[in-house]
């Protein structure tokens, strides 16, 4: 079954891209979940959609080839900086930044789509993901983003972890909390832009949070949770891509459903272990 993925170029790039986002999405997802920022991923994915719609509009109006992934990425990073700005303005109601940015992203998308007089199936692919959408160019860009993200997380792991656990303590001890947080949110924006080709705008936050939610039930400690999240993310991506391809379903849907099954199993295991312990005691 997997053979097709190595036989055809476009499938091979999709598969390799899937393996990459299976690592980086849950990797950043662990920090996002423990900092209770899950919804920020959703807001940023919608801003990315705005950027993609902008790219498609330029392509259609000016009749040039313009990779929409780039404009998506630029919008996403810009949106992440804007979210931080809004969060500092509305200190007591930080979550209000999320609907503002999310609706802004969708609003822009609608306007760009209307100006371009509607798009073809391409936009559908961006919404729900696609097994055939990753070009060689896309792949190399996503590969560079992945290497960059992994390197930065490795380099700033202790600061990111310290900040996630206790922001006040981190600040008192002299860590530049604001700068580290900004760096983190920009990384998140990059990962979202990179993941959208495969899982789609509407489901990208799921790939960042569901594997983490499952790992959280089983792991001891933060590093173990991170490792398990990546493992679950990879399983979801691989199984989701293959079933999506053979059943002719956008992979966003299948990947998320596999992730949900993993989540249910992990909850089941935890409950089972708990009952067993109670019985033994």
């Amino acid at each position, binding site marked *: 079954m997997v053979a097709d993925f190595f036989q055809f170029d476009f499938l091979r790039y999709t598969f390799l891209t899937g393996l990459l986002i299976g690592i980086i999405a849950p990797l950043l997802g662990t920090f996002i979940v423990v900092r209770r920022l899950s919804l920020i991923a959703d807001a940023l994915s919608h801003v990315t959609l705005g950027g993609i719609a902008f790219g498609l509009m330029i392509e259609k109006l000016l009749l040039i080839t313009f990779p929409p992934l780039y404009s998506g990425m630029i919008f996403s990073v810009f949106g992440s900086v804007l979210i931080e700005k809004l969060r500092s303005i509305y200190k007591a109601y930080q979550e209000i930044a999320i609907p503002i940015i999310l609706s802004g992203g969708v609003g822009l998308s609608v306007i760009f789509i209307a100006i371009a007089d509607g798009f073809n199936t391409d936009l559908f692919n961006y919404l729900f993901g696609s097994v055939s959408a990753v070009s060689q160019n896309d792949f190399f860009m996503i590969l560079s983003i992945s290497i960059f993200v992994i390197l930065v997380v490795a380099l700033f792991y202790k600061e990111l972890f310290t900040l996630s656990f206790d922001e006040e*303590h981190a600040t*008192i001890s002299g860590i530049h909390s604001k700068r580290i947080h900004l760096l983190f949110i920009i990384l998140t924006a990059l990962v979202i832009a990179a993941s959208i080709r495969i899982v789609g705008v509407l489901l990208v936050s799921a790939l960042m949070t569901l594997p983490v939610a499952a790992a959280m039930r089983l792991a001891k400690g933060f590093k173990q949770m991170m490792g398990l999240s990546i493992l679950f993310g990879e399983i979801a991506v691989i199984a989701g891509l293959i079933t999506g391809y053979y059943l002719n379903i956008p992979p966003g849907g299948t990947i998320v459903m596999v992730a949900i099954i993993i989540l249910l199993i992990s909850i089941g295991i935890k409950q089972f272990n708990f009952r067993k312990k109670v019985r033994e005691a």
Partner: protein
Amino acid sequence: MKESIVSMKNISYAYERKVVLDHINFEIPRGSFMGLVGPNGGGKTTLIKLLLGLIKPDGGSIEVFNKPIETFKEREKIGFVSQKANSFNRGFPATVFEVISTGLTAKIGYFKFFNKKHKEKILEAIDQVGMLDYAYENIGNLSGGQQQRVFIARALVNDPELLILDEPTVGVDYENVKRFYELLHQLHDNRDITLLLVTHDTGAITEHATDIVCLNKTLHFHGKPEDYSSLSEKDLSQFYGHPVNIVTHNH
């Protein structure tokens, strides 16, 4: 007279227009175990924030380890266990070891990684608070008293010379409060750590501290615990109700 490791001169601070601290003069002599008491809203937490450099005074000057606080860089010399240590996100998936490692993050610095020596240091701090058996347990699985020990260990991992604890015994049961004071004495006597303990529990603190400071906008009392205990109720209510002049102190 012992050297002061903290010295506040004429410190005033106001939130909006509400004056919280009014011309405070305050010193922490090296080697003391100081209890800071006073009513709610009396400015205890504000004083700590000033000491940690989180806020700047409206007037007056603060010296920490003989340096003006504005230029004081060796933050690891001051350990801090906050009130929030009791109300952190209990579901956070981190082991005791990982939590304590966060105490070292700033000291190690950017672009550097934990090495073997740091790991030994972390285990040593865990051992000091008697939590070695739980080093690789998730912090959320521990009892309140145990969690508090972990937060003290996080402060100890930097070998602080001054340890500040803000209301650490709130919500901790009697048995654990007892163990907590035992631990503090151990740190004070064996490791020469100067302690500043903010508390509501005036009964317990007068038994353990070497110095008591009572703060309510101004400094109402600064002296030995036995003198504080011998104050009559009338004196105390007067202290709380009518500001008196700043108490000068000699050691």
